[in-house]
Structure formats: C-alpha cells, structure tokens
C-alpha cells in the first residue's frame, strides 16, 4: 500500500473529499518551492502533485508553461526535483507526492535509475501526460513493479470502448480531466462532470478526482461534491508567478482546501 492508497482509505473512512494541489518543482526557485511544499500538508492538502519542469509542455496552458520556464531558468532539473522531494520527506512521512510531467526528462534519466531514485526520494506516484495506455511498457508497468502508483488521465474523449483500457494498469486514483483543453483554460462545470465521474466509477473501484478548470474554493466544493476530490493547479501557480510570497500562496491554498473539504 502506497501513501496514496493509505490517504484515500483514511479519507473514505472519515467520509471526506480529497483536496489535491499542484505546484511546479523549483518555481520560482528551489528554496521558495521547498517552503511552499513543506507548508502544503498544514494547509489542508491531501495529495501533492509536483510538476516536473519541461521545455515543451504540450498539454499545459500559459500559466504552467511559464512556471516551468521559471523553474528551468532557476536551474531546476529532474535530479533537483528528486532532491526537493527528499528534503520534504525529512519531516513529513504521510502526505503523498505524485510527480506530474512529461516523459522525455525521465527517459533521459533512464527508466530504471529514475524509478529507483524516485522511490528512494519518497515519491509515491506518477502522472505522465504523454504516456497513454498504448505505451504502457515504457514506464507504467516498470513503475508499478517498483511500487509506485501510475495514475492515468481519463478525459471527455475517452469513450466507453476505450475506458477499460485506460483503467487497466492504473492505480492510486483516476484523474478525470474535466474539459477538452489545456490546463488553466475553460471552467469545469459540475453538471457536466458528474455523469462522467459516474461513468468512470462504473468500471473502477479507484477514487476519481477531477482537475483542469477549477480555480476557486467554490468551484472546488462543487466538483468535490460529485467526485472523490478536486485538483487545483494553475490558480495556485499563477500566484507564484505573480511573485507572491510562499505564506500568501499557502493562505490561498488553505481556502481552496477548505472549499473542497466542505463538500
């Protein structure tokens, strides 16, 4: 059982919804990023998604693109991101961390060394946007064997025929992408997302969290009502991009967490 499995089991036992926060590793620099990361559990974040900076984030909108560029300009690398996780784990052993990003930096590092290093650093799961089930042999299967969850994205275009394939080899939780589009773009509409979440729950026992297009505490609450949790990314990262200090970013995250938890 990974920290992710344990966390969702605990939430289910308490009858609470999950709040998932996305931040970019090394944004705006290593130290500030670590300060934010360390503050997330205290701010009410149940699962942490830590973005891996990449030069060509094809599924991301301008806010996350710029965050990646800031991190890279400040010298962030995959190795430093694992060091960031390791530093976080020094005094936090329960909050799950999921690395979210693109395959090339991992392939460049080498899949086996990456899985070994990630596990040792305290990473619990992976969301790799450009690895659909068709490419499961690349990283998904080796990651599961190494004891990491491989979390899949399901989308509005994932039809009935395809859904079982998407659910196969996935673990931890399912991330439902609420819109066709890039991160931080359109607003998620609870009325449309609800039936989609039900559709996924019909074929899996895994928790289903919803992300993309959730920007406010109210929106988070609406979405958390019809799913097992809500993810907020761009709205948080945007504050970091505006140069707000870590304490202010964490205040905003606390409001978002309270919103989702009030569902």
């Amino acid at each position, binding site marked *: 059982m990974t920290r992710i499995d344990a966390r969702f089991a605990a939430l289910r036992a308490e009858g609470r919804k999950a709040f998932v926060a996305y931040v970019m590793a090394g944004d705006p620099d290593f130290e500030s990023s670590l300060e934010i990361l360390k503050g997330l559990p205290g701010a009410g974040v149940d699962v942490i998604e830590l973005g891996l900076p990449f030069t*060509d984030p094809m*599924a991301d909108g301008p806010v996350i693109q710029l965050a990646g560029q800031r991190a890279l300009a400040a010298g962030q690398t995959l190795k430093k991101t694992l060091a960031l996780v390791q530093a976080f784990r020094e005094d936090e052993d329960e909050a799950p961390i999921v690395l979210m990003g693109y395959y090339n930096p991992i*392939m460049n590092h080498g899949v086996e060394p990456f899985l070994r290093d990630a596990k040792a650093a305290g990473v619990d799961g992976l969301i790799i946007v450009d690895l659909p089930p068709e490419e499961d042999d690349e990283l998904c299967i080796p990651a599961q064997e190494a004891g990491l969850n491989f979390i899949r994205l399901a989308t509005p275009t994932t039809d009935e025929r395809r859904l079982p394939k998407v659910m196969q080899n996935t673990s931890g939780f399912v991330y439902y992408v609420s819109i066709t589009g890039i991160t931080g773009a359109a607003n998620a509409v609870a009325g449309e997302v609800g039936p989609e979440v039900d559709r996924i729950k019909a074929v899996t026992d895994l928790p289903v969290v919803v992300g993309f297009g959730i920007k406010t505490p109210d929106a988070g609450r609406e979405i958390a009502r019809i799913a097992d949790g809500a993810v907020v990314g761009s709205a948080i990262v945007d504050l970091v991009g505006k140069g707000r200090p870590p304490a202010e970013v964490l205040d905003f995250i606390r409001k978002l967490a309270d919103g989702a938890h009030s569902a």
Partner: protein
Amino acid sequence: MSSELINSFKTGPDENGRFGTFGGRFVSETLMPLILDLETEYEKTKTDQSFWDEMDHLWTHYVGRPSPLYFAERLTDRLGGAKIYMKRDELNHTGAHKINNVLGQIILARRMGKSRIIAETGAGQHGVATATVCAKFGLKCVVYMGAHDVERQKPNVFRMKLLGAEVVPVTSGRGTLKDAMNDALRDWVTYVRDTFYCIGTVAGPHPYPAMVRDFQSIIGKEARSQMNEAEGRLPDTVIAAIGGGSNAMGLFHPFLDDRSVRIIGVEAGGKGVDDRMEHCASLTGGRPGVLHGNRTYLLQDGDGQILEGFSISAGLDYPGIGPEHSWLHETGRAEYVSVTDQEALKAFQLSCETEGIIPALEPSHALAHVAKIAPGLPSDHVICMNMCGRGDKDIFTVAKALDWNMTEFD
C-alpha cells in the same frame, strides 16, 4: 513471408507505429481516441481507389505533377564530376513539396467530416499549402507560426492571409517551428471534436509519419521512373535536405530496397555541429528522446530539456526529425550529414548562377552536399537531388546574409 520481405526496409511502421524503437504514440489521453480514429480512417482510405483517383486528378490539374526531373548540365560541368539531376518539386503550385501531403490530409479530413483545419509552419511553406487547399475546399484554416518565423518569412504570412487563413504568431519558447507545433497540439486538444490537425512533416504520433511519407512518396516514385527514362537505370545517389524530413522521406522511400542506391540526408548544420548546439542536426548532433508524439533523435541538454535549434533556414529549424529517419540512420540504410549556413548560402548562389534556378534555403543544403561530393565522383555516377522548394520566400534572408541592401532600389 518471403525472404525479400523480411529484408525489406519498406515494411514499417509496425502495428504500434514503431520503426524499430522509434515512432509510437506519445500523446495525451484527450488526443488518443482521435489518433486511433485517424489511423482507422487512413488504413481504410489508403486502399480505396476513389481516394487515389481524386489525389491523382488534383496532383495533375491543381499541383502540376509530375514535376520534371531535370539534368543540371551547367552545374554538372561546373562541379566537374557526377551527373546531377534535380527533381523539380519547387515547380509545384505553392512552390514546394508540401502540397503533395496537404492534399492527402485535407481530402482525408473531408471524408472524416472535419470542418476546421489547423497546421504548424516554420518557413511558411506548409502553412501556405494548407491555407491554399483549405481555400480550394472552403474549409476554416488556422496556422500556428513562431513569432520569430513570422518576422523572417513575411511574404508567406501575407500569402496565408490572402488565402483566408488565420495566422497565429506563437510567442512561447523562442518562437520557432517547435513552439508552433506545441501550440497547434494545444489547439487540437481544445477543439478536438471538429478539428483536423494537418501535420507538415513525417513526425508526430502514429499514423502521421507513415501517412505523410505515403503522400510524399509520389516524389520518389516519379523520380524512379523518370530516371529510368532519362538514363535507363536507377540513380547511384539520392540526396535531400532534412528538417522534419518529409521531402527526403518522399524521395527516399521508393528507393529503400534498391541496395545499389546510396541515400544521403542533409541536416542543417547552422553555425557548425559542435557543443555550442547552434544547429538543427538532430541525427548528427542529438540523441533519442520523446517529443511531439514520437520517439526520435532530438536536440536536448543533459536534463532531457529540448534545445532550440538554429538554422538560417526556417524550414529546417526544428530540434527533432521524423522517426523513420532515426531508424534508417541506426540501421545504416541511409547516411546523414550536415552542412552549415555558409555552405548552404554558397550553394544557393551556385544554383542561381549555373542553372537559373533560385532555390529555397532548404534544398540549398542538399545542393551544398552535392557540391561537396560531385567533383570526386566519376562522370557516369548519377545523382538525383530533391529541389523541394523555390527561393522567392528567402530572398530577404539571403540579401541580409550577403549584406545586400534591399532598400537601395526603393
């Protein structure tokens, strides 16, 4: 399976879209169902005679195919060695080979009921070809073009606008072809249901590399039979320039199983292929990685971050290369070399002076390599190079590089 087929270089890709370990379908889940639909539709279409009849009709009456195979006599004399032929794809409607592929994809898009076409473009040739065919069929067309390329290829931007396309300048990254492709993919993921992404080169997720190659192979098929007519035999060497590699793949593919034919791809060496990484030579100066839906050779740093290529030619300014080229490189069936901006500029002038043909900067790279090897080859050695585009779009860039003041005629 016959032993001939086992030894064939023409059987790829496999059912997973792989050429050896290259290629594949590295895209987000939102796009995956679309990619699979496209694959199904293309598999159906490519054996449908009515599709190829429509293509042939348009290739003949709209594009002006077949393009001539031209014996470059004065160039041959000047270089004093091998006999040089040019496959004149620069004479196509819209001035380059790009339209061969665009026609195929747009006809396919129409069959799939898509009403909106998007494309990425570097030099603007693919954008112009896409805008042209969309105008012909009355389809909405949106072209993503790096802001830096918009600046250095203004005539093509104006052409696209005249043809009714919306040109979106891309400012992310350094504003070149790679960034335009990122934004085109972001558009596609957003308007996935009614939009067809018309990719301009033999890259991207499966089935694009195979599909674009199949459409561009008309170049090599024609060259093969035209060479037979002119020389009574196959060429000894075929040469083409490579950015993503579609004109090269189109010329090479029909010759892959002719072991006597030497195949050479010419990458853009920019300021020189060295540690400064100011070039676009993915095969000679990069290593395998995953970008834009496929595994292939890429320019990248030690952390796996993609580097911006550099070339005087906007059409070659891309840090990757089609996956089939990566495979041909690793199997050794094709050789890949690079030439610098300066060498390409010299070849550009050489073509103008000796043949009265103003070439695009892209095929100027292929010509530069021809100029390197031809003098050392015997006079009965036959070279076929792909003159894949004309240079009208490049005269401002070349004038600047040669310190020619274009305003003095104002």
